[in-house]
């Protein structure tokens, strides 16, 4: 922005210093996490304050990725239990990817119907749907767990994503708001050319709505990436275990009284890397989408 450059007054120096401290407090813990993950387990008693590890090593990453033999892992401070964070990483990607893509699509369809299509009972149905915003998640988690269990879908991706892929009231509400703001002329021209509702939605409305669609898709990705309770209940087994659940289980498998800190930090680093990549690639978009959705 082209603001006139103000001179560096005492007040501004204080303000910048405060902002600098905030940034340091934000970033340093992550630095320390990575630093610990590169430290040999045997060193954490002796080498625990230097900014750089005395004997940097990749062994912690290798063992949480399941790339070392059991003996090597145990020698490096692990419990010897088989862990394979590469798999959990992929599971997390599948879990949040499925939810983000399908939820955005289905909520866009619903939002479009509520915004543009005419049918009896539209406002009533919309009102009932939005009322679901009032029900706290924990309240539906218990019966939903029973339902998924009774359907025999525990430890399947289908069961894990079922409650969220089809809709979430907020996304329907949000996308409907946006669709209402699109001028009708374009659609009407297409209608005259004989394009049906699906064609209009898919070829005109969706491409015009990239901003809000990405906004909803991104926030959904972040929230489902962070999910813990629901995947903990429905996806404990190896083939569906996501990163957050894996970290919790890994924490409890510690060999001695002291947690396996170097391994845990290597696993934690893996749970941060993908969102960090997301932030680097889509940083501006992500930040702007906050201004856009306001609060989720």
């Amino acid at each position, binding site marked *: 922005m082209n603001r006139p450059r103000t001179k560096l007054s005492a007040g501004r120096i204080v303000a910048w210093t405060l902002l600098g401290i905030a940034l340091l407090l934000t970033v340093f813990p992550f630095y320390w996490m990575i630093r610990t993950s590169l430290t040999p387990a045997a060193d954490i008693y002796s080498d625990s304050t230097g900014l750089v590890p005395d004997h940097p090593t990749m062994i912690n990453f290798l063992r949480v990725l399941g790339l070392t033999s059991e003996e090597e892992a145990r020698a490096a401070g692990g419990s010897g239990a088989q862990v394979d964070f590469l798999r959990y990483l992929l599971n997390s990607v599948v879990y949040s990817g499925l939810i983000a893509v399908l939820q955005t699509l289905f909520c866009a*369809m619903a939002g479009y119907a509520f915004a543009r299509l005419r049918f009896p009972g539209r406002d009533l149905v919309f009102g009932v749907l939005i009322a679901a915003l009032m029900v706290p998640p924990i309240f539906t988690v218990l019966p939903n767990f029973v*339902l998924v269990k009774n359907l025999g879908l525990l430890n399947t991706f289908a069961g894990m994503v079922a409650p969220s892929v*089809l809709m979430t009231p907020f996304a329907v509400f949000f996308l409907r708001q946006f669709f209402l703001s699109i001028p009708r002329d374009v659609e009407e021209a297409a209608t005259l050319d004989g394009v049906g509702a699906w064609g209009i939605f898919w070829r005109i409305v969706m491409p015009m709505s990239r901003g809000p669609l990405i906004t909803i898709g991104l926030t959904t990705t972040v929230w489902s990436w962070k999910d813990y309770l629901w995947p903990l209940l429905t996806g404990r087994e190896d083939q569906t275990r996501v990163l957050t659940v894996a970290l919790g289980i890994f*924490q409890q498998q510690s060999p001695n009284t002291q947690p396996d800190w170097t391994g845990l930090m290597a696993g934690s680093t893996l749970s941060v890397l993908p969102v960090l990549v997301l932030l680097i690639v889509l940083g501006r978009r992500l930040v702007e989408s906050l201004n856009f959705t306001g609060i989720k």
Partner: protein
Amino acid sequence: MGADTAVAPPQKGAGPDPVADRAPARSRRSRDDRKAAWLFLAPALIGFALFYAYPTVRGFYYSLTDYNLLSDPSFTGMDNYRDLIGDDQFFNALKVTGYYVVLNIGSQTVLGLLLATLMHRLTRSVALRAMLLVPWLVPNVTVGLLWMWLLDANLGFVNHILDALGFGTTGFFTSPTWAMPTVAAVNTWAYTGYTALLLYAGMLQIPHHLYESASLDGAGEWRMFTRITLPLLRPVLALVLVVSLIGSFQIFDTIAVTTKGGPVSATRVIYFYIYEQAFTNFHMGYASAVAVVLAVILAALTAVQMRLLRASRSDLA
């Protein structure tokens, strides 16, 4: 919840457009899209019926039963609710949750406001905002583990520093006094950047010339903050405050990986209590009753939210 009304007046003129929404220019008869509409709505409606409406009814029903997840629920009427009244753990959970909410919301709001104001008055850097967002992007489980390590009584970095400064070491998560403030501080760390960015977005809506003329009149930063920023930010602030309030009632992940409700129930918040009752003790009916009470509390808070939002329409119009 409540969504984009105040915080993000969406780009140019989004929002319900009464004219476009209502009157069809052409005859009603020519455009009844009910077939297309139900097709468009089918996935969402199925999802709503199966995973929102049905479980809500089901949840109420479970709260009136004795149900251990293995055999069928057996109807016991109001028994669970009667038991709640004599359950010290339940009241402790309410108390502990309240304590957490106050600590967390207090620190998060004050720090968030400070951070947002600093950004607003100093820089528009996207890179800086992106960095402040990182803790929010990270799973609470990771955040919990990371801080358990940093605050570890023997090996943690923070205790090394405190020790070097002559304060000795503290078992932050293991002390009944410190456990809850520590959890609150950790979640403040994780969410303050996010809160600050929402508030910052609200501040961007305030016309810049107000600050310019104020500073021509010789107003200092503090005066501008109290006379311009705070009053004009009120609706956004109210929304952020109440939404994060409702959010912090639902703290679970951080507790689940760090203190697990301990030491001596010092951090057994209501969400965690429900989880334990349902999945550790297999008292699904009782857990549902506690969940109903939580839902009622949150509904009351939401009602307050609605009032607050109405009462605090921006002076900006």
